[in-house]
């Protein structure tokens, strides 16, 4: 979804479908899909409530949701939308959102039904509520001609973080020990940098400082130029923190810390190169895949830093081997 949404912005396709929740006057597919899935989910829940067949429940739900989405895609999407680049970007992103919504609905139902851990239950509900808010923000963005698009972009990253944390905790039960302060600080810095990046993008300020690495300062001092400057300073700060986090992970000699830390370090190098490439290519439309990749790698850095921070809680509770 991050890639799909980033692609919409890179292609300036946010208003390629001018209405919401309809699509060119037709009922929006994801609304129909979600309603269909809700009906099937309720029926399936009742059927399996006594048998607790988790795999059948999830399987049936996903099959039903998939069938609903396929049906609406075939019958209700605008004609030839998949052939037209900007329609494919925007309408495809709405369809994907519909699929994600159905999946999250299944997830939150499953977690509330079968998971007793309070942290996980709350995270699942927060993720679903976050998704609903994101869908509403996306609709508002269309209705008020993109004026809310930066908030839609920011919430997407927060929602992504919630899902990464939820996925991690579903696989590894939560630990109670405090996380490493350095790793938490790195996660915080990465998030601030991502939010700054959203502001740069949505203020059309990619070329506000028209060169990389020089000039250091912009020629004017409007909002776009200031966001671009702070974003570049933020990149340096994040890089320093990531290197420090990697050094700490290496020192701990824990492979479960080293892997995400190493991945994060590699991603930061790639991210800086991608950011520079946007400037070097003049942010031209024909290179619109570069800003999309920049957004996607930013999200991957978020994922690595979150996993690192959560893993550090586990590492600090690990019992050292007896001498």
């Amino acid at each position, binding site marked *: 979804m991050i890639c799909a949404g980033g692609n919409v912005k890179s292609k300036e396709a*946010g*208003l390629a*479908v001018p*209405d919401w929740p309809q699509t060119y006057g037709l009922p929006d597919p994801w609304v129909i899909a979600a309603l269909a899935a809700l009906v099937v989910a309720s029926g399936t829940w009742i059927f399996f409530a006594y048998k607790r067949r988790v795999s059948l429940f999830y399987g049936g739900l996903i099959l039903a949701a998939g069938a609903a989405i396929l049906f609406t895609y075939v019958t209700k999407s605008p*004609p030839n939308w998949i052939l037209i*680049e*900007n329609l494919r970007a925007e309408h495809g992103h709405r369809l994907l959102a519909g699929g994600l919504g159905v999946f999250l609905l299944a997830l939150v139902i499953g977690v509330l039904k079968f998971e007793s851990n309070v942290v996980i239950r709350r995270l699942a509900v927060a993720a679903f509520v976050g998704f609903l808010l994101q869908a509403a923000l996306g609709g508002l963005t269309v209705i008020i001609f993109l004026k809310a698009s930066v908030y839609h972009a920011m919430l997407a990253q927060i929602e992504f973080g919630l899902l990464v944390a939820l996925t991690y905790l579903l696989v590894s039960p939560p630990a109670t020990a405090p996380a490493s302060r350095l790793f938490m600080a790195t996660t915080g810095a990465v998030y601030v940098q991502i939010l700054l990046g959203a502001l740069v993008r949505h203020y059309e300020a990619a070329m506000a400082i028209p060169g990389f690495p020089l000039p250091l300062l912009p020629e004017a001092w409007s909002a776009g130029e200031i966001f671009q400057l702070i974003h570049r300073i933020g990149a340096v700060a994040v890089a320093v923190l990531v290197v420090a986090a990697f050094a700490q992970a290496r020192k701990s000699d824990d492979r479960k810390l080293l892997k995400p830390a190493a991945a994060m370090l590699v991603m930061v190098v790639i991210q800086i190169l991608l950011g520079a490439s946007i400037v070097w290519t003049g942010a031209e439309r024909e290179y619109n895949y570069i800003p999309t990749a920049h957004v996607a790698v930013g999200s991957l850095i978020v994922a690595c830093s979150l996993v690192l921070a959560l893993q550090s809680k586990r590492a600090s509770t690990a019992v050292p081997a007896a001498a």
Partner: protein
Amino acid sequence: MRILSILAVMAFLISTMGVGQDSAAPAVKTEKEGGSITGKVALAADKAPKRKKVKTDADPVCQDQYKDEPLLSDEVVTKEVGGELRLQWVAVYLKEVKGSFEAPKDPVTIDQKGCRYEPHVVMLMVNQPLKIKNSDPTMHNIHAMPAINKEFNFGQAKAGMEETKTFDQVEEGFKIKCDVHPWMLAWAFVLPHPFGAVTNEDGTFEIKNVPAGEYDLVFWHEKFGKQEMKVKVEDGKAATADAKFEGK
């Protein structure tokens, strides 16, 4: 004495002829009144700038229309006439005209044809209908981005679809674009009066039925900016106003 009485009556009649009209407004009463402004707009450049080729592969219908000859951008369109480069798509209009003018009922039409807007620059009056047509066998959307008037964005999924919009505020030079086909761009001018024109492919223009008086004439181009000049219009005569933009 008799002659004096006749002169007095004539003077009285002449003095009452202006009552009930806006004394500051040289309002045009009939089509045949006023003068006109004609002229040409040139570009000061060593050679004609090349029109940018537009990639239309984002839509196979558009791509198909330009498989032999590429679509060229309408941003800077020039033609050599009489040894000088003339500039098309320059909006020319009077800055201020005293009086009130009723908007025509006939619409100004903008058509989506060949995956571009025709015309590239459209000029209409406040509350005059703007008819928006889709002549292409593909989906377009029409996104008007005024700063003062109400913004709108709607789709026209098929050829033959039409919709009419109006603008109720004066506004100069705002974009109309298509979010499905990002290269498509037009510019719109909403004037409080009918005294405006857009230069044709020869770079010439004509503004008719202009009330006699002295005016500021504005020349606007999307890339080369704006310039003004004074022009004096006399009844029944054509005033000439030529402009030249510096090539960038």
